[in-house]
């Protein structure tokens, strides 16, 4: 295993570790959109992680397609969520109940 392969594996490991603060934000986030942003960040990290996995298994050609599809789905998801929040104007109050503004 060359030095670059080891670097790639450790990069993947640290990307996985850096998902933990985002996950913490998903659990704690005061507003709903905070949670959506954190999920968006995790999705971007997953697309990068797929490229790294492709390098590890010497199958870049296959995994690059996966990463592209994942990035597209991630973008669509965040855009759909933002449009939904825009139209509905939902809000979480302190008790965690979702109420709709008039």
């Amino acid at each position, binding site marked *: 295993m060359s030095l670059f392969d080891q670097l790639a594996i450790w990069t993947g490991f640290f990307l996985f570790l850096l998902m933990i603060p985002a996950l913490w934000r998903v659990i704690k986030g005061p507003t709903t959109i905070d949670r959506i942003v954190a999920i968006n960040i995790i999705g971007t990290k997953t697309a990068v992680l797929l490229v790294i996995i492709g390098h590890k298994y010497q199958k870049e*050609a296959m995994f690059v397609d996966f990463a592209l599809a994942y990035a597209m789905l991630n973008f669509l998801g965040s855009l759909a969520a933002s449009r939904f929040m825009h139209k509905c104007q939902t809000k979480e109050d302190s008790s965690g109940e979702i109420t709709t503004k008039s």
Partner: protein
Amino acid sequence: MIKETVITVLASASILTGLVFFFGAALGLARFPDFYTRMHAAGKGDTLASLLIILGFAIYQLNHITFSLAGLQTDWFTILVIIKLLSICAFIGITSPTGTHALMDAGWEDGIKPHLKSDDANDLAKDIARK
């Protein structure tokens, strides 16, 4: 031999820089006090870091291509992989700021208040009240 060394060093530098920016994005997302500042850290850091890391792997793919004075002798398969990696770069570079902007706009329309110092006036308060 020297070509491989140069390519590996360039790719590693790009990947390590990307990791630093990812760390900054994660730290900002966890530590900033306000929805808008968290959005700022997440949107910018994440875009640049993904671009740099994927670009690093695209640079490393150049190892499989043999350059010579007679021209480019290679399998087109590797070039296709490089083009796909660069297209992921372009796609993330376009869509990540777009998504961040859309989510930020949704939050503003939702009436999320920015975090202000006590003696700072919110110049856009009228805009919130109008909603």
